[in-house]
């Protein structure tokens, strides 16, 4: 259980592709950090460099108080859970978990105790003599976890460990993994492309885009203060509405082709912006005010707990998440956008300005 530190880590593949631009961050002891981003953004590459499965082109990687750039994966004191489980098909559950310990020359009795303890913890005891092919997806996933746990490593690495499971099992395993990681208090790095997984599991989230870190922060930071339009639209479901607008630098933004919106801001930026509002922060306004935000409804999507109204605001497509009990008038709908729910991003850089 150690602190992990990445300093200007960079990866260029032999074919010249720069998969990870120089990136730096620290993982605190016992923290679960989630790397999230769209497919191909370099999450796996980053994780695999930490694991030692890919060479580090530049930068310094420290696990505990050792620089491990050139240390073999087996000696980094890490354990990894793979997307396809990567269990040894010809070995029983027991042997799968014991293999890493056996290679490290632990005495048989100690191996046995550790494997049985892990099996107990993961409710795998009754399957201990089965082969992976005789297990369900969730059980295989647990065996993969067990193989990582028995080693009591400094650092756990997960590469999209849940993406082969069905939705229900995924939710359940998400909670199990999180609980387990808390219980044993191990530092963990978790890669996923699923923003819900990231939001629910992480102590801190790192959002990656095209090999660069867009933002590092707690789930609530990421949700409430997205650092860029990329983070704003990637995190959150349904995604944040982004409207082209201009900002006068003084608390009022004007949506292109439409009305003015009040903004709480401290910056001094002036000019073209993307105005962001989360669908769940918009409310339906009963009356038409002096300066109304008129919403033209196209389609209602029932979610059960609420309803998504798809339509247009000042000609730009816009989504509102309305409570079930709200009546939806025919014809024009008027919206209320609270001042503190408005996010502004500079048009040219995509960076947050308020």
């Amino acid at each position: 259980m150690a602190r992990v530190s990445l300093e200007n880590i960079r990866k260029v593949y032999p074919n010249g592709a720069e998969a990870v631009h120089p990136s730096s961050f620290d993982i605190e002891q016992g923290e679960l950090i989630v790397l999230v981003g769209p497919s191909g953004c370099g999450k796996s590459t980053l994780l695999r460099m930490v694991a030692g499965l890919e060479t580090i082109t530049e930068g310094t990687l420290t696990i505990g108080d050792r620089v491990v750039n050139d240390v073999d994966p087996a000696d980094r004191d890490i354990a990894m859970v793979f997307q396809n489980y990567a269990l040894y098909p010809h070995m029983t559950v027991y042997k799968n978990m014991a293999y890493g310990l056996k290679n490290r020359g632990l005495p048989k009795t100690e191996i046995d105790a550790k494997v049985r303890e892990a099996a107990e913890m993961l409710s795998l005891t009754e399957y201990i003599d089965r082969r992976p092919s005789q297990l369900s997806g969730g059980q295989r996933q647990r065996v993969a976890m067990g193989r990582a746990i028995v080693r009591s490593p400094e650092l756990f690495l997960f590469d999209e460990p849940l993406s082969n499971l069905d939705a229900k099992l995924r939710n359940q395993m998400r909670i199990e993994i999180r609980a387990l990681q808390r219980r044993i208090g191990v530092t963990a790095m978790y890669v996923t492309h699923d923003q819900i997984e990231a939001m629910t599991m992480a102590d801190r989230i790192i959002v990656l885009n095209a090999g660069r870190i867009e933002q590092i922060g707690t789930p609530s930071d990421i949700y409430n203060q997205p650092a860029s339009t990329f983070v704003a639209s990637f995190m959150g479901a349904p995604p944040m509405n982004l409207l082209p607008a201009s900002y006068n630098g003084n608390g009022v933004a004007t949506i292109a082709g439409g009305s003015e919106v009040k903004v709480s801001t401290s910056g001094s930026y002036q000019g073209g912006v993307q105005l962001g509002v989360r669908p769940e922060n918009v409310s339906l306004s009963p009356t038409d005010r002096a300066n109304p935000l008129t919403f033209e409804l196209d389609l209602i999507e029932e979610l059960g707990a609420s309803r998504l109204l798809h339509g247009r605001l000042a000609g730009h497509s816009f989504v509102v998440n309305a409570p079930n009990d709200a009546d939806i008038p025919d014809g024009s709908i008027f919206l209320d956008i609270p001042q503190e729910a408005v996010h502004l991003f500079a048009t040219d850089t995509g960076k947050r300005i308020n």
Partner: protein
Amino acid sequence: MADIAETIATPKPAPTPKIKWEAVTDHAILIAGALFMLLPVLATFTTSSHDPVTIHREGLQLAIGDQMGTNFDKALFEKGGFTDNVNGITMLMNSFILGIGFAVGKIVIGMMAAYAIVYFRLRFATFAFWIIFTTLLLPLEVRILPSYEVIQSMGLTNTYTGLILPLIASATATFFFRQFFRSVPEELVEAARIDGAGPVKFFIDILIPLSRTMIAALFIIMFVFGWNQYLWPTLITTDENLFTLVRGIRQIIQVYSDGNSIPEYGQAMALAIIAMLPPVLIVVFFQNWFVKGLTESDK
């Protein structure tokens, strides 16, 4: 009873048994093929139960005679040849040594070569593979003279090594194992690396057990292939103690050309039957493995 009478009285219109000519033709062809393959074997077997004089006078026999025991006994245990010191058992042993040695040698070398090609970043791995691959076009029969030269100059004529080694040198096993190894998921290799398994451990603990059906299938094919070798053993062994069964049969018939006695046809037939049995038995008993190895892989 009434019911039955009724059903008989009113036959359903549909099932007028039509002769499907296609099926008949197909089956006729298959049966003809099967007979074509099996009759010689059967004739060999029945003929092996007659004494040489009968066979010499009347040709192949299709009925069982009374010399079966004698012929098989002599074929196996009577010492023969020019030097009168090899019997059927010795030749059987030699055949087994050739078959097993060839199969094992080929699998071991093929696996190791494939392992190197697939898992190590060798400079010319692909090139090396294609070089090995092209040897498929050069079976021993094509390169038999140079091979003989080499083996002879190494003083390996009339040794098991000389018998087996040149046969091993070809690419089939390497090729099959390469294809198989490439289908083993990359993640498995990485998991093993993290689990602290070095190249040798990975090979022995993971790759070999994963390949076991493949190994079994190749073993069967290679064993039969080695067992049936004729040309190379004929060339490289002059010492009768190293004769294989397949050669021994010919040796018996060859007495004929010496002209001073009737060849022991019965014994030759008996020996042929004995020579056929091990490959057949191996295929029969291991056919499950065989089919599995060629069609499925449990990864």
